[in-house]
């Protein structure tokens, strides 16, 4: 049933620096991980010949063979449930869920098996599965193609949840997630996959930051913006616009959503006294509310204003003719900065 492996690790390129989109960087990261460890397998709907509906797995089946890149039947519980079994067997499956809105048939396996087997067996069974999830809006799609369900997974003990915002992180974080012995939900900002504006030089010889660490990506002293995934770019644009008006904003890319790494946020808030958390997800019982709770606990005497949030709304994702109103944008973020400063 399975073809022999072809030239593993082919086409990685000779120079250690390549200018890549986020999507191409993910592809290169997956390719590198597969070349490094024969137990890494990619599985999902249309990930083989087609290369995935977003082409993130483009060429992997051709180069690594059908026994390493599995086009699966069309059922998400099956994808996750068999990945769990493959991991028990000693593989490191990387599952692609086609769109975040289709992950819910797999929710049971994710919550009941993937997240709990390590605890259930007190560490005797490891389930190093990565579930890649294209998420977020801004692509003008129909229902179920634009959601941000990451908080649901961050709420489940036993899972780790991360989100990349740029090509360099995409390249490294996917490899780090694959080598992690814990199950990792890997949220990818789909609207940025092929953005040429976001292209960046990826140095494959560099030493990456740890996976479960957030990072200050722009220094400032008036207020702090914290975001992840697609919202990081929006915050950076807001900070650039604010700077033109003489307002210096600090921006933090959270990167890891479970466990949260809030030390850089606390440090920042102790300096700026103001925090605005930005996310496309509905605000209620979410990553953003968790951050607000922890910051008020840790930075109570440093805060000059309550923690504010700029997010989607507590509604289902709207018809996308309305998504420009739903998604956090530069103006809503700057409005929140003004409100914070005026408190």
């Amino acid at each position: 049933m399975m073809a022999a492996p072809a030239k593993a690790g082919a086409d990685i390129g000779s120079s250690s620096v390549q200018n890549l989109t986020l999507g191409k960087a993910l592809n290169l990261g997956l390719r590198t991980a597969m070349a490094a460890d024969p137990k890494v397998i990619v599985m999902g709907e249309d990930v083989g010949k087609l290369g995935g509906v977003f082409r993130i797995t483009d060429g992997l089946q051709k180069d690594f063979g059908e026994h390493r890149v599995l086009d699966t039947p069309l059922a998400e519980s099956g994808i996750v449930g068999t990945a769990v079994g493959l991991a028990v067997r000693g593989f490191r499956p990387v599952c692609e869920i086609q769109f975040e809105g289709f992950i819910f048939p797999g929710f049971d396996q994710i919550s009941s098996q993937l997240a709990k087997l390590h605890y259930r067996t007190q560490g005797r069974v490891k389930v190093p599965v990565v579930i890649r999830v294209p998420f977020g809006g801004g692509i003008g799609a129909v229902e179920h193609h634009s959601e941000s369900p990451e908080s649901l997974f961050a709420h489940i003990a036993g899972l780790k949840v991360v989100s990349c915002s740029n090509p360099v992180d995409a390249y490294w974080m996917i490899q780090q997630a694959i080598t992690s012995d814990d199950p990792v939900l890997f949220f990818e900002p789909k609207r940025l996959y092929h953005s040429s504006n976001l292209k960046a030089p990826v140095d494959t010889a560099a030493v990456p930051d740890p996976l479960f660490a957030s990072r200050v990506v722009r220094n400032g002293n008036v207020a702090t913006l914290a975001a992840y995934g697609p919202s990081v770019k929006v915050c950076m644009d807001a900070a650039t616009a604010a700077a033109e008006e003489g307002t210096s904003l600090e921006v933090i890319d959270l990167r890891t959503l479970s466990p949260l790494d809030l030390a850089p946020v606390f440090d920042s808030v102790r300096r700026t006294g103001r925090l605005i958390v930005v996310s496309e997800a509905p605000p209620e019982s979410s990553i953003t509310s968790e951050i607000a709770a922890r910051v008020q606990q840790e930075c109570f005497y440093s805060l000059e204003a309550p923690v504010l949030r700029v997010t989607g709304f507590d509604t289902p994702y709207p018809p996308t003719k309305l998504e420009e109103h739903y998604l956090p944008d530069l103006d809503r973020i700057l409005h929140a900065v003004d409100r914070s400063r005026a408190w």
Partner: protein
Amino acid sequence: MSSAEQWTQPGENPAATAAKPTPEQVIAGLRATSEGGTELVQLLNPEGERIASPQFDRYVEDVDAEQLRGLYRDMTMVRRVDREANSLQRQGQLGIWVPLLGQEAAQIGAGRAMRPSDMAFPSYREHGIAWCRGVTPQELLGIFRCTDHSGWDSSATRFHPYTIVIGNQVLNAAGYAMGQRLDGRVGDDGGEATICFFGDGATSQGDVHEGFVWASVYDAPLVFFCQNNQWAISEPTERQSRLPLYQRARGYGFPGIRVDGNDVLGCLAVTRWALEECRLGNGPVLIEAFTYRMDAHTTTDDPTRYRLSDELEAWKLKDPIERARVHLSRNGLADNDFFEQVASDTDELAAELRDFCVNMPDPPPDRIFSQVYADPSSVLDAERDEFLSYLDGFVGAGER
């Protein structure tokens, strides 16, 4: 033996109607599902007589008197474990118990058909399979005394942790079996196979259907072993299916077979056949072991609310241990000393189990935080430290 065509063509004598109760049977509380239908494989009938089976005899031709006695002993031991644990629950020593009473033949037959290199994925009633895999009854108790979630080494025993969410393990087993094939461990008699256990209720779960799809399209070496014990808590099999469960396999393109689940020799033969098919690369295979849950779903259940005692009485006549005993006696394969020795062994095992159970320590509070992740989580570590320091604030905390 098992071309896809053979199993995807409707049989000449479909047993679909065999499971249909007559009005008289319904009134009597005797549903027709107390009869397995015309396609039931049976090597030992309820009277303990050996029934010849042209297809399956060769799979048990090595089973001599000693092995038969062994099967009897296995069944008797696990029944005693089951009854003892049930009593321990009644006496407040276990939080809950899940009885296997009546399913000993299905589990010992299937369990003894496995080789050490085969892998098993159980549901939560598979105490007999655990016994065959070398998981001790003591190791089972932690789950039911609520001191752990799974107390055995699942890779050494090749017996996956009990899965409580109905049907989840079927997909996990399909993945594991795919891995056996990816590892090149399928295709000759030295190959590996996986066997997955679930009940009649689970056959309605999407995960079981998806497991059928995955295992079939990836040619996985997986035996689906469905113990149809007639009841999913209070719901009879008629609430799960219109046709006999083994016939569902046809729709997925692999063999399905119904065996008398109270016939240990039949279960051994059929499971050996199925595992061999899988090792050789002809998997998957579905086995429906037609049996009966003679006790409650769990110790929290009350079957008198939904089924009549006539039904239980009818099934008592098909008792799996009794028919093995009669077979051994009638054929001079075991003497009274043997039966007395087994009875004494069960007493000893029960005493050991009871002693172990009542002396099981409670886990320490920091166990709550143990092994949530393979790599540490700073957030969780902080939560643990805060809680432990809170506990340490109590007077006498150091003596805990």
